[in-house]
């Protein structure tokens, strides 16, 4: 049951083969058994889930509802959920219960989906391993000694282990795609502005984008159908009409032009990962696609550009966590300054504090031009590279990450080394284009994700390409051993 797709489950719910309450209990039971091993949830909202399931069953009994009605989902703990603890993986928000709902979770709620709980994440979405959570590291269901990736590591692990049908994630520099790759699931980072950021706790406002994480492209399409589209509460949300993400899934790929950027296959890429990617590309050729080498010459610069822009925006976005109106406040502050200084030093973890300081430095007087402005100029060069490449090809393919999931604690001493691993994902956020991670095989028993990047607002195309691949492969249907026993 836990391995089935949204389409199949929706059909079963509609046919009354199963009720949403039963389905929800199945997942709650699995969470009770397996989550202690994975730590993929920060909050399990059992009571609320069962209420919502019951309401969904009533809707379905009346012949109402959508394909998400009664389907259990989980939300990254960065989306504000009214009445449910929202921590953003931080001690700072250990007691924060929002009196409002994010647009993404509201739309999923309105569609009748059931919220199982809130998933673990790197604190304030800063990290690529989920080791930076105040609520403890998340384990990769394929190997409990390895990381699930980050920052949406809890969502990825929960989907991979069958602790939810699907989940939401957010992606600022790869936070949906990299954990999807490490955990062998499908994830989509939409075009910047395609999905509302309202109620998403901001890391870097000009890069953040919420999106679906699920077993298959088709399941992602179901979620996109619900969450995408204009929201008047977010000034950066696009008014471009949304596509029908389910309608074109079956379009054949004959004549599809794939670009392989040579910079994605250079030094640093694990040869075993490279093999998996090239095998996947050959599969596309079999499906009628043509492949050509392209170049994204400024790729290398995406790392410094990102690690200036993201921390700069973060340093300002995270100023509101000051112990005045919500969240953590230090004990017995001796004065106002002491309250600020200790509240923030206690409430934020080290990686968050480090990025706040990097950003503060980059924006400070005398450095703004050399850092922030320079990074924004390079950002344009990176965007231009993609625009040029995508005028020649329909989609760009490459690896999501240079390696498969690494050992927990193995990179903790060298965070800069971890930054370098984001090389294949950061540029997509800087340019604002959509991209997916699609399960493409295994290297030494660990999943490898294929990254598919497309033009602005080409989510439907990406989902179509990924779906066709999944019609001819079964990598997305693999289940980790630990998940099978439960």
């Amino acid at each position, binding site marked *: 049951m836990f391995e089935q797709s949204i389409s199949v489950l929706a059909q079963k719910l509609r046919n009354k083969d199963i009720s949403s309450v039963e389905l929800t209990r199945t997942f709650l039971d699995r969470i009770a058994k397996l989550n202690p091993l994975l730590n993929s949830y920060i909050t399990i909202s059992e009571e609320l889930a069962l209420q919502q399931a019951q309401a969904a069953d009533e809707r379905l009994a009346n012949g109402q509802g959508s394909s998400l009605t009664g389907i259990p989902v989980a939300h990254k703990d960065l989306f504000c959920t009214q009445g449910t603890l929202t921590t953003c993986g931080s001690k700072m928000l250990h007691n924060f219960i929002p009196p409002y709902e994010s647009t993404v979770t509201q739309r999923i709620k309105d569609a009748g989906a059931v919220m199982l709980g809130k998933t673990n994440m790197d604190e304030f979405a800063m990290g690529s391993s989920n080791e930076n959570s105040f609520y403890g590291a998340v384990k990769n269901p394929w190997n409990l000694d390895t990381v699930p990736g980050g920052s949406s590591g809890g969502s990825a692990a929960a989907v991979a282990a069958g602790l939810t049908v699907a989940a939401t994630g957010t992606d600022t520099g790869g936070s949906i795609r990299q954990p999807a790759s490490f955990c062998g699931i499908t994830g989509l980072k939409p075009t910047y502005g395609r999905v509302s950021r309202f109620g998403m706790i901001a890391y870097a406002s000009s890069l953040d984008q919420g999106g679906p994480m699920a077993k298959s492209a088709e399941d992602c399409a179901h979620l996109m159908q619900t969450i995408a589209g204009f929201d008047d509460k977010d000034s950066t949300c696009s008014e471009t009409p949304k596509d029908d993400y389910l309608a074109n899934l079956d379009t054949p790929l004959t004549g599809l032009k794939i670009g392989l950027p040579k910079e994605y296959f250079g030094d640093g890429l694990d040869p075993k990962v490279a093999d998996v990617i090239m095998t996947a590309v050959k599969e596309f050729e079999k499906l009628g696609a043509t492949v050509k080498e392209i170049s994204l010459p400024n790729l290398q610069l995406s790392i410094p550009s990102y690690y200036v822009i993201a921390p700069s925006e973060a340093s300002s976005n995270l100023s509101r966590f000051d112990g005045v109106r919500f969240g953590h406040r230090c004990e017995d502050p001796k004065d106002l300054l002491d309250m600020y200084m200790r509240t923030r030093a206690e409430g934020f973890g080290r990686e968050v504090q480090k990025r706040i300081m990097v950003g503060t430095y980059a924006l400070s007087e005398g450095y703004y031009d050399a850092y922030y402005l320079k990074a924004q100029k390079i*950002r344009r060069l990176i965007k231009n590279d993609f625009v040029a490449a995508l005028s020649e090809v329909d989609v760009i393919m490459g690896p999501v990450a240079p390696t498969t999931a690494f050992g927990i604690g193995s990179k903790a001493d060298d965070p800069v080394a971890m*930054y370098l691993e984001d090389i294949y994902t950061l540029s997509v956020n800087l340019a604002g284009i959509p991209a997916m991670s699609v399960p493409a095989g295994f290297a030494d028993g660990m999943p490898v994700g294929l990254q598919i990047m497309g033009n602005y607002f080409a989510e439907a195309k990406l989902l179509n390409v990924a779906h066709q691949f999944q019609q001819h492969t079964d990598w997305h249907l693999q289940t980790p051993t630990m998940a099978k026993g439960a």
Partner: protein
Amino acid sequence: MSIDKQDVQKIAHLARLALTEEDAVQYQHSLSSVLSLVEQMQSVNTDGVEPLSNPLEMTQRLREDVVTEGNHREEFLANAPQTEAGLFLVPKVID
């Protein structure tokens, strides 16, 4: 590019983060390594390149001037560490 401990304390103060001596030494190293990483930007010629701050380069949308929200004070105050008489309380502010 490296920064000294004093720089670290200055930045930490601007960002309102209390650092111990030990923290300051650690951050001095980790910040210096990030700053060296970003230093490679300086080798690129960006003369005449317009900075890009929003990927879609859209323009600001406007909201009609209407009051759409009522009073939700109690809901908001419920999350605050300390309140009284409908106010958020903070340690004494001295002008």
